[in-house]
């Protein structure tokens, strides 16, 4: 009985939302897990929001709520956004997946886009970036540049995206430098500047002269600068203030083109649920300028790889590749399928250590 009642209210609420949505401006909402000035993930999305406003000018209105915990509050924030006539809502953290699906059920006329998740519905699309493409380039540079043959990797939370990044970087470092060794530290947070600084220092002390990071603060770059003779890469934003060295390149989250395209689709009435997974080719993954701290030939190779990936002529996960325990994964010339990549929870052969379980 409760279920029928629920459905009825849901319908009523949904209609209310739809009734409000038909004013002239397209209203786009954003739900953020962190503060807009975190200097990392959330700031990247908020930059995309600002670009969106700039692009459309007066025809689009954007709203956002920051610091929404991935718990009981998320669903309420989304519902209220939908109720106030928002046409399109981007929820930008993995933990918002189930709440997004729940709220979307109640508002069939509002479009939802959930970042980094895997559940969709008629009015829920997902989007994510192929950051591993950027990692391949970083791995190449790291393998060429390291003198100690030790590359430090600051990993955040053990989820497929992070595992993919480690694998991609390792494969390409190892390809150009068979002696390379990866030391991985998991800090179990996306952003904790103090811990990132400590992790970077620990890696440098243990001989790493290249630091790769999947965490969002500039602390590892600052540690690299202080140590001297160590290079690193910008993450999430360009972190160009540390160029030309220690920051020799970067992976930039660039959501603006996607946000603009999807908003345009809503305006045109052509929006459809999709699982978008874009990389360098559409610009969702930006590769920051490779500085002159990198030798010209390495830079040229890295840029060539970037262009091949963008053109679709090279895939970072191309066989032959074995899993960590030696079992074959991809045969010669075989390319990994998106399904395996999306749920990747194993290391490739050559990496040491375990993924925390």
């Amino acid at each position, binding site marked *: 009985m409760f279920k029928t009642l629920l459905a009825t209210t849901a319908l009523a609420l949904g209609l209310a939302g739809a009734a409000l949505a038909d004013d002239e401006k397209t209203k786009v909402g954003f739900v953020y897990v962190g503060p807009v000035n975190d200097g990392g993930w959330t700031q990247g999305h908020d930059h995309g929001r600002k670009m969106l406003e700039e692009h459309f000018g007066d025809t689009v209105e954007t709203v956002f709520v920051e610091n929404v915990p991935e718990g009981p509050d998320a669903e309420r*924030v989304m*519902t209220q956004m939908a109720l106030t006539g928002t046409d399109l809502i981007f929820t930008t953290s993995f933990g918002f997946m189930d709440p997004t699906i729940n709220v979307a059920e109640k508002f069939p006329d509002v479009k939802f886009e959930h970042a980094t998740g895997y559940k969709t519905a008629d009015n829920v699309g997902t989007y994510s970036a192929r950051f591993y493409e950027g990692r391949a380039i970083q791995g190449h540079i790291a393998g060429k540049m390291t003198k100690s043959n030790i590359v430090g990797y600051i990993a955040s939370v053990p989820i497929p995206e992070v595992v993919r990044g480690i694998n991609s970087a390792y494969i390409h470092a190892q390809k150009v430098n068979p002696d390379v060794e990866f030391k991985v530290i998991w800090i179990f947070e996306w952003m904790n500047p103090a811990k990132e600084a400590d992790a970077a220092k620990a890696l440098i002390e243990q001989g790493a002269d290249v630091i790769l990071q999947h965490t969002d603060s500039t602390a590892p770059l600052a540690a690299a600068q202080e140590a001297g003779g160590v290079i690193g890469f910008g993450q999430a934003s360009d972190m160009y203030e540390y160029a030309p060295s220690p920051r020799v390149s970067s992976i930039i989250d660039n959501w603006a083109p996607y946000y603009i395209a999807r908003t345009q689709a809503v305006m045109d009435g052509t929006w459809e649920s999709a699982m978008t997974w874009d990389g360098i080719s559409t610009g969702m993954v930006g590769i920051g300028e490779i500085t002159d701290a990198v030798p010209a030939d390495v830079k040229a190779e890295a840029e060539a790889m970037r262009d091949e990936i963008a053109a679709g002529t090279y895939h970072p996960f191309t066989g032959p590749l074995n899993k960590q325990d030696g079992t074959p994964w991809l045969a010669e010339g075989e390319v990994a399928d998106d399904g395996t990549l999306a*749920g990747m929870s194993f290391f490739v052969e050559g990496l040491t250590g375990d993924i925390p379980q």
Partner: protein
Amino acid sequence: MITLIKRPQPSKLWTFATPVLAVAITMVLGGLLFALMGKDPFEAIRTIFWDPLFHEQFAAYSRPQLLVKAGPLILIAIGLSLGFKAGIWNIGAEGQYIMGALAGAATGLALYPMDAWFIFPLMVIAGALGGFLWAMIPALLKTRFNTNEILVSLMLVYVAEQLLASASLSWLRNPEGNGFPGSRNLSKIEAMSNPELFAGTGVHWGVVAALAAVIAAYVLINKHMLGFQIKLSGESSRAAGFAGVNSARLILFCLGTAGALAGLAGLFEVTGPAGQVSIDFNAGYGFTAIIVAFLGRLHPIGILFAGLLLALTFIGGELAQFMLGLPSASIQVFQGMLLMTLLAMDIFVNYRVVWTSREVAQ
């Protein structure tokens, strides 16, 4: 000259008047703050305090949400208030909340995919027990060794947070979760979910429990011997000793009740609004409930209103963020100011403020 004269008994009038005054003063101070940020202060205050209740577009939704948000806060705060009244300082409700959720979720998931009517009740018991046992650690240490319960209960919050992290990364991790941390979504499993009981009201079992706790606490404090003992201990532990109050039993009771209620709150959240065990599952409810307890003057009815008021500032704060573009930090400062003003006004409850002109005094 201003002189403070201690009242023999807290003033009844001021006890009721100060919360209202504090809200009014905070509105003025908050308005100034918002004006300083270049926002219309009246619009901001209206969005936070009025719109969630009466706005025609969304009040129908946000009004019941007040109950959802306030439910756990009230449930935890009621438990805490008993201890605070008796001078027993449990500030680790956050940890007890986590342990309740973990114990309850673990019990349910251990039986997965069984489907039986008794699973949810079993989880409720496990949740209460989880919080209770976690609170028994500071309680027993206090009665046995006279160890400071403020500090022990606080330390246990961090221990609980680590257990939560390990639960979502390993032992309660959803095996079908595509490699992501976090448990199965309990609210989607019929036998384990804590749904809205009456559509559109926001009332789930946690809200029912909170209201029951308010009534029970009211009866206990006003009609029961134990309530008298609690009040007596808070006013003077020596007097309580002479009156034959068994302080060890009181400590066990107050901490145990607080723990059990916090554990229940955790269980109802993890099976309902939150849905799953995840690394960031605890959104600070245990600490916010301390604020609720004090805003409510440690009185059951007061806590009911304080919980609703704080929930209002949360929900109104979210509205203010996306309707007016107020940063979330300003809402936090606003809540802090509210608590500070109220605490500062405690002085009128406990003291008579007398103005004496210099001439008279000489």
